[in-house]
């Protein structure tokens, strides 16, 4: 479930790539909603320089420890540092952007 987008220049000048990891547990409505929301936000604000990895903890439960995942779904911003976590179905776009530290596109 890896998606890669092009690397055309965006509004945010600082980081070149955004490494994002979305933890889910199976194909629950919340997980699906979170992924859809994330995809939408990234396409809108970070087009071309983001990288989303989806980890399904039902398949790889041992991975939950590494990023200290408790809540599902959790979005982890691996890059750029520092690490940020956003929990929930990412329905509140504004808060996702705050959490990712991405300035919204005007």
């Amino acid at each position, binding site marked *: 479930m890896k998606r890669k987008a092009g690397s055309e220049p965006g509004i945010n000048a600082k980081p070149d790539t955004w490494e994002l990891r979305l933890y889910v*547990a199976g194909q629950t409505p919340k997980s699906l909603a979170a992924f859809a929301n994330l995809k939408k936000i990234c396409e809108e604000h970070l087009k071309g320089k983001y990288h989303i990895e989806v980890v399904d903890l039902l398949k790889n439960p041992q991975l939950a420890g590494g990023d200290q995942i*408790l809540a*599902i779904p959790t979005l982890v911003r691996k890059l750029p540092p520092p690490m940020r976590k956003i929990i*929930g179905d*990412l329905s509140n776009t504004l808060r996702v952007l705050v959490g990712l530290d991405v300035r919204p596109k005007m």
Partner: protein
Amino acid sequence: MAKKEARLLKGLQKVRTGIAGLDEVTNGGLPKGRPTLVCGGAGSGKTLLGMEFLVRGATQYNEPGVFVSFEESAEELTKNVASLGFDLSRLIASKRLLVDYVHIERSEIEETGEYDLEGLFIRLGNAIDSIGAKRVVLDTIESLFAGLPNPSILRAELRRLFRWLKKKGMTAIITGERGENALTRHGLEEYVSDCVILLDHRVANQISTRRLRIVKYRGSTHGTNEFPFLIDERGLAVMPITSLGLKHIVTNQRISTGIPRLDSMLGGKGYFRGSSILVSGTAGTGKTSVAAHFVDAACRRGEQCIFFAFEESPSQIIRNMRSIGIDLQQWVEKGLLRFHAERPTVYGLEAHLASMHKYIDMFKPKVVIVDPVTNLGSVASEADVKAMLIRLLDQMKFNQITALFTTLTASTGSLESTEVGISSLADTWLLLRDIELGGERNRGLYILKSRGMPHSNQVREFLLTDKGVDLVDVYVGPSGVLTGSARISQEAQERDVESIHQQELERRKLNVETKRKALEAQIASLRAQFQAEEQELKKLTEQEKMRQNGVSKLREKIARLRREDENSERRKG
């Protein structure tokens, strides 16, 4: 067999914690397959209780366990509990224990919409499955409230978590921080309601005591009191002391006091085994020496002893006792005697009791010495000390341990009263007192009481010699009770008087003898005189006889001469 099974099925199944005393207090352990809430303030021992539950489970009951820590990392935990003798890394390596450190940084987390704690469930489930765990500890799950926003979601998820743990058959301990007006700060008791244990850490008179109380235990009887507990190098130890009653059995066996003369004062055989002996006295009257003799005698019989010293260090006691000819060092080396010397103020009374209880449990002695119990009064009130001693004595009587307590009585006031009022607890009460007389202090011993045996009512003088304690008769004479040099001088004086009497008698005897001799001589001389007189008389008699003889012959002659005429007359006539 079938009946037994049916009974087991009916009742609540329990899992032994392996924590000393806790299983007694809970009548068998924690509810099997259910979560138990352990709450208490900071530093009350919640984490240790949880950890010991897992360690004991893994090592003693072959039940692997998962420790989910929300506060400390596995390394920190390992270090912290190493001081209790728990080797976590070994247990972790052998897959009998798994420590999962769940760390949440509030500042890293942004909440955007609906979420659940499936991640925690998955982690926990994975951990449980990977080692086949039967026990789970969540310490302290309330950290989640600080780390995650939206408490209403959290509450629902926690409820689900506890249900899920129950469904998985995990015997779990959930720890919670003590709240202001509730058992826990976030009301965990609402969700975990099968068994709630409250830990407390109170400070009174600058001395802290840990206590444990079972607030509730659904479907089971349990001790309801506050039980003191200890945390030391062997882990937690809870004292189920109040569960004992006056049900101990007694023996008629007698054991020597170690002082032959004292044995004879106690009906010739010494103390009863399993009885409690109180040795009271003012300062410096030899209480410890009496105790040391008893210890020495017990060790000679090959019995184990524990000496709880609250005043002197073991080496000091050993040195001092050597000066009266008792070598306690040899028994220490042979492992028959153990000293536990602590200042009473080192911890609270209950903790003292707990530690004594634990040592007695561990060492299983036949004889226990507490020297002196009065020092415990410095950390608690009289009533508390008495209550504690009752519990301690109950335990010892129950185990047929002979206990000897020494108490220090103040020089002022009645000697027959002990400071802590424990005299009624004692079966045998020896009173040591000093007798001041003639500018010196001497020690006296008497038996104030000794239940169930004939005993001497006499005061004995108590001497500390280099061969141990010696009891000698005091002088009781017309001039009162005398001890020490007064006794000796009195005895000497009596000896003098005696010898004078003797001499007088001798003299008189001699006198009479001479008199008798003189008399006899007199008699002899009188007799001689008499004999002489008699002799003379005899001579005179003979002379007289001879004279008379002579006279008659002469008369005859005369007659004959006269007859001439008569005859002629007669012839004529």
